């Protein structure tokens, strides 16, 4: 019976707190974009003419098939992160693709139409060198994988290993490449640096060594990219120091040393300091490669050469040229070369590989993005047209990871911004007001207006009302005009010029910073990229810090964001100031940062242009202010005594608190040392600056109030033990006051391990850890209360809090692994809070904070029922309805960003990882707006019904009265 009561209580509470998605809301306010990462291998399906498949393998360990007409994903397989999922090679034959992954550990064959796995083979350990398809008598039957010390041959249809052979003298010889020309032999090339090349011939049938020879090559240090096989088995190498090409006939017993051809004899010269690159093509693995090849002499100089009767003949010199690539369609092989046209555009032309003659009318103009990087990879898809001429499309990858797919005469078919696969940090910025909105705001905003007197104010009011009326009429006219047009042509085109804040501030600008150093401005409503900016000279994957210095609220001052970046060359910090709405770099002079920056802090001190002040503290504890006007310095002097900050030195396990002096020097005031031999500091988090707490306390069952301990200076410090043994490891949490350095609370979770995810907000900290004893994830919640009385209800001071807070804690089992954790945030903090949990399966769970309440009772009492507390249950429920992103899973979710909207009930959520997903959540349902399914018909029909009923009954009553009077 008691159980039933508990169940009932839970279901009742769920009814009030559950925030689920209705089926008709799908895609209404949410969107997802899927990414793949930096392309390492790309192959076009040339099997059939109509095929639209483009297979790609990327540095994010993603193997995917793209639709080459639209750029959308057909399917995508996301392997595990790190070297174990790293894709080493991608080969394609017919409808199948072979992928070597995990440093040559796994060999997989995929069916490319539906993306199903055909077979998977585990290979022996050993570092991967190369892989090649091997053909016998015009049929591709095998795949050969070369490792550091062994070579193995596998059947393509089943994956079974045909043979595996150890390579001779593998401890001295570095085997690097592999070649097969369809004549029943597999050649393996190895090199002993600055000594000789080793060539081993294997028989395909049984792996028997047919021949092994070594050739003198004292100039050789590495085979990769400087050697290739051309024509019917001729090894071709290039050397920069001797400025020569070397050739060697593979299958001749006589030739024992390489033939040298000086580049001078061809009137060529390799640019100094440039490692020349040879590129050849083997259209069919069962047949020898072509005798034509590209030689790259400098970063922008390619030359097409041909080997003919033992002589090397230049076919065509491409100077200047950025990129060159071969492509084959049917029997014909072509070469595409990208050359600069002018400062902003490149032209791509097609040449026939065997003659070097240019194909007519094949120019594609590629316009470079002025805010982007240089192109660095070219992938060509050649096809035969109806009139038997060769047509082609190209995919260009740039430094900033933009994939552009072009077709003749330069039309961009699609574009993908793959930098977004690795978002590091983001902010959501309010959109600016439109002119009319700003006009109205300005009337109330300006202080001067009050002094104007009554009459001008009335006039101003009338004029702004008139402007509003005008705007409304224009809007109506537009609606009417659009309604007449066919529906398809009326597109909600998002344009940077028409961007303006909506009624409830639901549409915002998402400023995203990516690991590659590219910034994006994305419209949160549609997901359209409105601006992008590639920052060169940035160390990729370094720490970025994005700070909003001025919001859009200070019209006519433009909003201002500052990004702290690390310069690639100097390794020092650098400030990049920009307008987050338009993405334009601001002209404001930026202070130079001569020393590494330890920390940044944004003060609520505002300069005359309404920009918040940014303090940067370097490793000598010197303070730099930005902006640093006189006004600011004056203000800082006045408030310096109340500015405190802390530093974390996790290598020494030291937390130290500093205070700002009037002359902007700093003073150490406290220090907490957490011994590094036992535990290390993993993460430190304060509370979010834009968080509001609506209620100061909680009303208990007996009508008394339990006040919350709302210390804005509280820091949550998470530590992990250095001992990783599962019996002795632990996770610690310290709550430290950032001003006084007082340890407010500390707790230790024994037999626990990281990674720890945690959220610190209001008066609570929620953290997740791995319980290594029971092998499960556990949530723990700490809540701090002042008690029944508030010490000083008007203002919180860390220096004047004599009573330590009461701390309540409770832990729960979470029946799933966790990727990331964040809490919802609303405008005024009235709405109940939910925790957003990113799961490795790609779902985002919205978990009511109500379940993580340390006051959940074990035994239900009258009072706890009064308070609406859910009885304690050790296991946290997970329901499908709580997944806010339904089937739109976010792969490898790495962070969740929450931002308040203008509606109190609504919180904007962006989850990013490999994909980006934007949605809105309503933790307490939409209490401040009419529901989507609000039944207007019913309510109006009831009203009309009542109205008519009254009319009719009135009439009837009159008739009845009349009749009675006559009686």
């Amino acid at each position, binding site marked *: 019976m008691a159980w039933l009561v508990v169940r009932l209580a839970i279901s009742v509470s769920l009814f009030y707190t559950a925030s689920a998605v209705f089926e008709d809301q799908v895609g209404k306010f949410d969107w997802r974009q899927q990414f793949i990462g930096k392309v390492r291998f790309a192959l076009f399906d040339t099997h059939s003419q109509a095929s639209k498949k483009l297979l790609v393998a990327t540095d994010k360990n993603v193997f995917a098939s793209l639709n080459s007409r639209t750029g959308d994903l057909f399917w995508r397989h996301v392997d595990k992160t790190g070297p174990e999922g790293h894709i080493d090679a991608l080969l394609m034959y017919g409808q199948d693709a072979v992928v070597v992954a995990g440093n040559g550990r796994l060999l997989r064959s995929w069916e490319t139409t539906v993306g199903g796995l055909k077979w998977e083979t*585990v290979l022996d350990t050993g570092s991967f060198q190369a892989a090649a398809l091997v053909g016998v008598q015009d049929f591709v039957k095998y795949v050969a994988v070369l490792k550091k010390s062994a070579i193995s041959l596998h059947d393509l249809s089943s994956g079974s290993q045909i043979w595996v052979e150890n390579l001779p003298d593998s401890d001295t010889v570095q085997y690097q490449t592999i070649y097969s020309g369809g004549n029943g032999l597999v050649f393996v090339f190895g090199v002993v640096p600055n000594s000789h090349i080793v060539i081993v011939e294997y028989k395909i049938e049984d792996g028997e060594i047919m021949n092994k020879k070594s050739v003198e090559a004292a100039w050789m240090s590495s085979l990769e990219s400087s050697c290739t096989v051309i024509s019917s088995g001729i090894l071709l190498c290039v050397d920069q120091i001797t400025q020569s090409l070397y050739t060697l006939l593979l299958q001749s017993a006589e030739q024992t040393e390489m033939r040298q051809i000086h580049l001078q004899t061809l009137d060529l010269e390799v640019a100094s300091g440039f490692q020349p690159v040879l590129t050849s093509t083997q259209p069919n693995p069962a047949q020898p490669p072509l005798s034509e090849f590209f030689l790259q002499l400098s970063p922008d100089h390619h030359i097409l050469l041909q080997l003919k009767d033992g002589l090397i003949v230049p076919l065509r010199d491409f100077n200047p040229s950025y990129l060159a690539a071969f492509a084959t369609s049917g029997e014909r092989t072509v070469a595409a070369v990208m050359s600069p046209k002018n400062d902003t555009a490149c032209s791509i032309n097609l040449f026939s590989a065997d003659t070097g003659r240019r194909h007519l009318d094949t120019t594609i103009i590629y316009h470079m993005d002025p805010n982007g990087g240089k192109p660095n990879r070219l992938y060509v898809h050649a096809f035969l047209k109806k009139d038997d001429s060769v047509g082609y499309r190209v995919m260009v990858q740039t430094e900033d990871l933009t994939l552009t797919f072009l077709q003749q005469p330069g039309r961009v078919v699609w574009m993908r911004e793959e930098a977004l696969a690795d978002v590091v940090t983001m902010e959501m910025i309010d959109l600016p007001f439109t002119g009319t909105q700003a006009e109205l705001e300005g009337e109330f905003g300006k202080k001067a207006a009050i002094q104007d007197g009554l009459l001008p104010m009335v006039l101003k009011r009338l004029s702004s009302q008139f402007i509003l009326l005008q705007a409304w009429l224009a809007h109506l006219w537009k609606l009417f005009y659009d309604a007449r047009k066919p529906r398809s042509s009326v597109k909600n085109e998002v344009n940077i010029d028409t961007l303006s804040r909506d009624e409830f501030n639901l549409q915002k600008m998402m400023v995203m910073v990516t690991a590659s150093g590219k910034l994006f401005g994305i419209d949160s409503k549609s997901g359209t990229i409105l601006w992008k900016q590639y920052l060169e000279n940035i160390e990729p994957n370094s720490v970025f810090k994005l700070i909003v210095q001025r919001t859009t609220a200070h019209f006519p001052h433009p909003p201002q964001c500052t990004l702290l970046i690390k310069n690639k060359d100097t390794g020092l910090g650098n400030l990049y100031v920009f307008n987050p709405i338009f993405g334009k770099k601001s002209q404001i002079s930026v202070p130079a940062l001569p020393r590494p920056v330890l920390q940044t802090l944004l003060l609520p001190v505002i300069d005359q242009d309404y920009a918040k002040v940014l303090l940067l503290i370097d490793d000598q504890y010197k303070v730099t202010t930005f902006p640093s006007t006189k006004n600011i310095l004056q203000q800082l002097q006045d408030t310096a005594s109340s500015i*405190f900050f802390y530093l974390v030195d996790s290598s020494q396990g030291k937390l130290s608190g500093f205070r700002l002096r009037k002359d902007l020097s700093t003073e150490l005031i406290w220090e907490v040392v957490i011994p590094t031999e036992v535990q290390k500091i993993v993460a430190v988090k*304060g509370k979010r600056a834009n968080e509001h707490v609506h209620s100061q306390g909680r009303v208990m069952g007996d009508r008394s109030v339990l006040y919350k301990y709302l210390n804005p200076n509280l820091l949550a410090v998470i530590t992990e033990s250095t001992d990783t043994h599962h019996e002795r490891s632990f996770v610690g949490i310290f709550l430290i006051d950032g001003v006084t350095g007082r340890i407010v609370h500390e707790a230790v979770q024994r037999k626990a391990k990281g990674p720890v995810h945690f959220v610190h907000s209001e008066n609570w900290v929620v953290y997740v850890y791995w319980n290594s004893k029971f092998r499960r994830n556990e949530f723990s919640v700490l809540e701090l209360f002042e008690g029944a009385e508030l010490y000083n209800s008007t203002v919180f001071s860390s220096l004047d809090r004599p009573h330590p807070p009461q701390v309540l804690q409770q832990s729960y089992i979470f029946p799933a692994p966790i990727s990331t954790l964040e809490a919802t945030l609303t405008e005024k903090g009235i709405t109940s809070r939910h925790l957003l949990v990113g799961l490795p399966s790609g779902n985002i769970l919205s978990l009511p904070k109500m379940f993580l309440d340390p006051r959940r009772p074990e035994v239900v009492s009258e009072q706890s029922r009064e308070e609406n507390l859910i009885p304690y249950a050790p296991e946290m429920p997970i329901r499908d309805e709580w997944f806010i992103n339904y089937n739109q899973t976010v792969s490898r979710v790495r962070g969740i960003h929450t931002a308040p909207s203008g509606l109190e009930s609504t919180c904007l959520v962006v989850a990013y990882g490999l994909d980006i997903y934007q949605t809105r959540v309503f933790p307490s349902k939409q209490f401040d707006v009419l529901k989507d399914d609000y039944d207007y018909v019913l309510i109006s029909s009831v009203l009309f019904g009542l109205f008519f009923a009254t009319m009719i009954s009135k009439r009837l009553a009159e008739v009845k009265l009349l009749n009675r009077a006559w009686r």
Partner: protein
Amino acid sequence: MKMRACVTALLLLGLRACLSQDVRHHEDDEEDEDVMFQTRAQVSGRALVPGVRTRDWISSARVLLDGDKHVGFIRDDGSFTVSDVPSGSYVLEISSPTYRFQPVRVDISSTGKMRARVVNYIRTSEVIRLPYPLQMRCVGLHSYFIPRETWVWSDFLMNPMVLMMVLPLLIILLLPKVFNPSDPEMRREMEQSMNMLNSNQELPDVSELMTKFFSAPKGHEKAGGGARGHRGGAPAARGGALRRKTRD
């Protein structure tokens, strides 16, 4: 390695600005090395969605061991293997955006022996064996959506408020039709029954009592106003309490 990082502005007296930064820079290098020397096993099994062709669902599905520590893919025939798994205990789940599968706990001993059992997070040592190689059967579709409340006539009619209004209405309208009040016999009968009900004639009526009570201090002021004021006060106080309760 520069481990110093940091940050936060902490201002007293109402001013506050908190930024935070992770200082998670460490890598568990040692642990990875340990793992390399352990025996590595292969976890294999078969996944089945009854009534759906495998090629229709496998391209969006993955096999996950303990989150995405180890990942496997599903073959054309529904079978899967996850390779290179060090010994230990793992929870294996099949993640598919459409179909739901029950997770399974897989124990791999240091000698490479496998055991599959039901996942129980509360009693972790409890063993309910499952067949190995794993047989993962789809247990249904994910139900991400909650249905909209639809408006049905029966719901409307069964609403207690509506019942409360409709039933008296029916009584008022129908009763006079059933008994004819103009019939003298019937009237007498009804009067009798009414007298039976109000047998205790001496007991004062509650409403009368109240009026008397409130109009007692009559003489100085207008009594009606005072009474009204008093009555109005009570609900306001109650409302205040309610508001307080709902604040949190």
